[in-house]
């Protein structure tokens, strides 16, 4: 017995080191760059960087689709499976690059296909992960609910109030989700200044004639734009496009491309949040850099009654367990 006691610190040290190895693999997926994405598995609500060597200069059709969502009981499905993004990316050095922020976790597929040689393509499957802070908050929430239930069961008035305060404080911790007000119901407060869609004789317009209409995280919306100079299309102009989330001022998508022979910028995209966006374009036309922008908006999807009941009943499980436990322990107040 005494021998075991003496060995215990060593065993614990070994256990901690061994668990370190297990967690390294886990944390690497969040931190370390992968073969195509950085981080190897993009984290929802954070910018992820993609690059893949295609070996040839040219225009590439890039498609991102969601293959499946995580378990619907424990993870809210914001983006439904299906196409998320379809757009042309231009590469001068044979590397196709993209920056994109995903709305939620799940299995995704990115396809990069040469616009002239369709057989020259690459299909990459990847996972988008849940931010670690959300798991922490889930665990905290369930612990607090259990504690609140227990104290209610025991009818300990004072402690239950303290618990409520701790619960409120703990859950109000800042997190990384794309936070915003009631999009569509009120004007978005933004520090982003207006950029016009016309500079001198260069104009950026919607191909369909107006800003797209649609819901965030559903079917890709038609964000196609056309670059014209005195009415005629600006062909083969290289550009940078930033899809700016106006409430945060941060991009959710960044693309480098070249306009088509019709002066078009092809973009079918399902934005990750229901709010206002500004599509900022920096185009190089005949040696001069033009800054142009168009504004658009995606409608916020509303929580469904089914989802709300599922969440509520899930939360009530630890509460009821706590109440039962506290009640069994007897009244103390």
């Amino acid at each position: 017995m005494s021998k075991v006691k003496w060995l215990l610190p060593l065993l614990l040290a070994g256990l901690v080191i061994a668990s370190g190895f297990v967690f390294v693999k886990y944390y690497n997926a969040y931190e370390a760059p992968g073969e195509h994405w950085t981080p190897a598995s993009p984290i929802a609500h954070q910018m992820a960087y993609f690059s893949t060597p295609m070996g040839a200069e040219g225009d590439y059709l890039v498609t991102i689709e969601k293959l499946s969502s995580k378990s619907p009981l424990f993870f809210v499905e914001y983006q439904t499976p299906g196409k998320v993004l379809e757009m042309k990316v231009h590469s001068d050095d044979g590397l196709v690059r993209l920056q994109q922020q995903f709305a939620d976790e799940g299995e995704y597929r990115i396809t990069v296909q040469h616009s002239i040689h369709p057989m020259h393509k690459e299909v990459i499957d990847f996972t988008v992960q849940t931010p670690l802070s959300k798991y922490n908050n889930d665990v905290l929430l369930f612990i607090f609910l259990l504690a609140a239930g227990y104290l209610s069961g025991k009818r300990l008035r004072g402690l239950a109030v303290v618990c409520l305060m701790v619960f409120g404080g703990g859950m109000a911790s800042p997190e990384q989700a794309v936070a915003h007000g009631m999009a569509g119901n009120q004007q978005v407060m933004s520090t982003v200044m207006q950029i016009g869609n016309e500079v001198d004789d260069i104009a950026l317009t919607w191909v369909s004639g107006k800003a797209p209409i649609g819901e965030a995280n559903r079917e890709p919306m038609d964000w196609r734009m056309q670059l014209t100079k005195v009415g005629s299309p600006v062909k083969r102009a290289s550009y940078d496009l930033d899809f700016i989330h106006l409430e945060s001022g941060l991009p959710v998508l960044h693309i480098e491309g070249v306009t088509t022979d019709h002066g078009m910028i092809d973009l079918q995209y399902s934005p990750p949040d229901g709010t206002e966006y500004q599509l900022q374009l920096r185009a190089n036309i005949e040696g001069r850099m033009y800054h142009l922008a168009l504004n658009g908006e995606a409608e916020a999807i509303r929580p469904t009654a089914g989802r709300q009941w599922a969440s509520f009943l899930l939360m009530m499980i630890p509460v009821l367990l706590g109440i039962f436990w506290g009640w069994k322990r007897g009244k103390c107040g």
Partner: protein
Amino acid sequence: MNISITMQQGMAKSHASTPLKIWAERVLWLAWIPMVLFTVFFASIPDVHNGMHPVRHSTTIVQCH
């Protein structure tokens, strides 16, 4: 002050004699957690929604928008 003391006495009396109050207290003890959960996570009152928005986004199980 006099009224307050009178009220306290009255309350103490009713506490001792009325099972209704005990029942009300029990209901409150059962209801306060669902009420808090509803307010924090599900109420669609604009001001409450805006105030609680990051909290609603902070877990994996609550749908916001």
